[in-house]
């Protein structure tokens, strides 16, 4: 390459030109690579900035200070508790809890209390100056006046984390979806990880290389490539229609996702087992250990970090999956967190999908906020996997 430093017959203008062209091409190629990487990473940055930017307002909720009339009539008609003109300013989700509250605290009746209460989502959006807030001009004037009197404030939106889905955006949260996600993921984990690891052990350590084994191998690769939505069709046909698992339940979703995750875990586990050098197995056999003892006591512990990493990545993928759940009925309106795996549940990605289709503007920021929560969880899982891989990686 640096033969140009040595004077010889090849030094000619033509050669220099050619050399230069080649070197330019060389550095261009280098730059292509950098650009490609840069583009991908730039997208990543753009994406996160955009999502975070959209999500941040969702963590604040507007509150208004209004007169609440604790009157007898409010027990049956909660609209009576506020002035007529403020009925659309105060959150209805809060108002409708009044009758129950009043029945529990009868001593409040007859009082007139000035207090901070959550505002309607349209007011909230108007205060946040979002396009499409949907607040009628009549109420805009009222809200403007209240703002001037200092009767409007923004507080941390704790409800977003403590309540379930709601048709009133100011009351909508991700709690029930998060619980549903945990249930579903637990089932996926309990089914997919053991079966996946066992399959991989069988294929790597126990099976002879016969026709059947080869069919299983090809088949597992195929399964990994099958579109997730087809797993939904499978789940619908087998678990719901055939086995009678309740539609929309965490069990139905978890089982479906388990089948989907299985090939990922099997492939990762096989790779981990393969990376354990055969000298270890031979040494164990040499000491009279059986196949099972060798695998259980020597190979598996060494392959554990790889298996863990693969399982975590597989589960993270299952956690973000929506398409098959659409088919097994988990994209539904489920405001209460499920108590057990047979109850109707929804999951975070499904909640995101539902909110993305809602008409009120306030759902848009909540969608972004739910995305942010989901991404945080998934990225921590992936980060954990990367950490495990790095920390326990052993070179033989």
């Amino acid at each position, binding site marked *: 390459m640096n033969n140009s430093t040595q004077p010889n017959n090849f030094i000619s203008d033509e050669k220099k030109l050619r050399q230069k062209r080649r070197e330019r091409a060389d550095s261009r190629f280098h730059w292509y690579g950098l650009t490609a990487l840069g583009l991908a990473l730039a997208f990543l940055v753009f994406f996160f900035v955009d999502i975070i930017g959209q999500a941040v307002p969702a963590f604040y909720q507007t509150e208004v200070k209004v007169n609440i009339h604790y009157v007898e009539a409010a027990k049956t*008609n909660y609209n009576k508790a506020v002035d007529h003109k403020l009925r659309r300013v105060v959150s209805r989700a809060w108002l409708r809890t009044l009758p129950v509250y009043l029945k529990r605290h009868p001593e409040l009746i007859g009082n007139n209390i000035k207090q901070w209460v959550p505002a309607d989502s349209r007011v909230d959006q108007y205060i946040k100056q979002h396009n*499409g807030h949907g607040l009628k001009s009549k109420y805009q004037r009222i809200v403007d006046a209240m703002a001037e009197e200092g009767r409007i404030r923004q507080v941390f939106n704790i409800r977003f984390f403590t309540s379930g889905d709601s048709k009133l955006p100011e009351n909508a949260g991700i709690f029930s979806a998060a619980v549903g996600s945990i249930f579903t993921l637990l089932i996926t984990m309990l*089914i997919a990880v*053991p079966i996946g690891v066992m399959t991989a052990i069988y294929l790597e350590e126990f099976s002879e290389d016969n026709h059947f084994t080869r069919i299983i191998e090809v088949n597992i690769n195929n399964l990994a490539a099958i579109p997730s939505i087809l797993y939904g069709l499978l789940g619908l046909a087998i678990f719901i229609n055939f086995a009678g*698992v309740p539609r*929309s339940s965490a069990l139905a979703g978890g089982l479906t996702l388990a089948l989907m995750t299985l090939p990922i875990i099997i492939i990762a586990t096989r790779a981990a087992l393969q990376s354990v050098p055969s000298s270890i197995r031979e040494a164990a056999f040499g000491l009279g250990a059986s196949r099972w003892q060798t695998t259980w006591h020597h190979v598996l512990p060494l392959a554990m970090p790889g298996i863990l990493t693969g399982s975590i990545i597989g589960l993270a993928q299952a956690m973000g999956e929506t398409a098959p759940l659409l088919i097994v009925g988990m994209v539904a309106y*489920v*405001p209460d967190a499920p108590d057990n795996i047979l109850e109707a549940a929804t999951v975070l990605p499904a909640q995101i999908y539902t909110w993305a289709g*809602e*008409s009120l503007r306030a759902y848009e920021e909540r969608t972004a906020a739910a995305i942010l929560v989901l991404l945080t969880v998934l990225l921590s899982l992936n980060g954990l996997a990367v950490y495990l891989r790095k920390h326990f990686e052993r070179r033989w």
Partner: protein
Amino acid sequence: MKKQYAILMAATFLGLAFIGQAEARDQIRIVGSSTVYPFSSYTAETLGSTTKFKTPVVESTGSGGGMKLFCAGNGMNTPDITNASRRMKSTEYKKCQENGVKDITEIVVGYDGIAIAQSKTTAAINLTRKELLLAVAAKVPSKDESVLVNNPYYYWNEINARLPHRKIAIYGPPTSSGTRDAFEDMILKHNTKHWKVYNDAGFKHFHAIRQDGVYIPSGENDNLIVRKLTKDTAALGIFGYSYLAENTDKISAATIEGVAPAPETVQDGSYKLSRSLYFYIKQSHIKKVPGILEYANLFMNERMIGDEGECADIGLIPLPKEMRDHYRSHLKSLVRIKLEDFAKK
């Protein structure tokens, strides 16, 4: 680990075996139309937050999907209530009967108006149903009404000189949508039923919508249509009245035969593009699942579907007072629908 695993497997299989036997359920399951879904889930939420009952689970499966699940049988795995943006069909009723779902109560909760809307910045437009037909049908009569030809119209003034020279572009619901069904019924089938040139060509209920890009199916997400309309100012959009009410700052409705969509015009029948919204109760579940009647009563309460009700707030067009009372009494006595009812329609 192996031991725990074996126990776990046993537990799983035991669990599977028990599932079918878990016949008790304390949470109402509702499925059905995406049009009724907002009102149904709103009511469900109110029931959950103001009473001791659990919040019912509402799944938007579409009217057809809802009927299929609803009619599958009486087991606790089947839904208790299905919403529909059209009436149950006699075939669906028969299927219900076959599967042992004998006693069904039909309730109408209100109307859904279909609005033809455009960007607020665009000059107002008045259309007739016939003009709409000529704009969207795949085949239209030739000028002399002798034969059917492929739809040649690309500008409104080609259909009627009275109309502006404006490109025809209509964003509307896709094939699977109930709103599309209703639109086809009211615009296409209604007009072509007695139109000689269609009948001569062998069509009694012609309802194929053109596919050359003038009619743009746009998904169930009506919100996106609204957004598109604000950008594409020449276009019209077809969607549920609730979205019009929600977005009056951005879009305005075209008048149909001189009438603008509004609760009053839908109720008195002068606005022609509207349909009834239904829900169906499986009577055999009323005793088994707590809260079904409470849910239905709450839904039918003035507070929800009355003129000033909360559902009206989110876009439901209320029934006239006497109709509301009529269906309330239906609910009270749990009137069963019979096969003869379908003939009357």
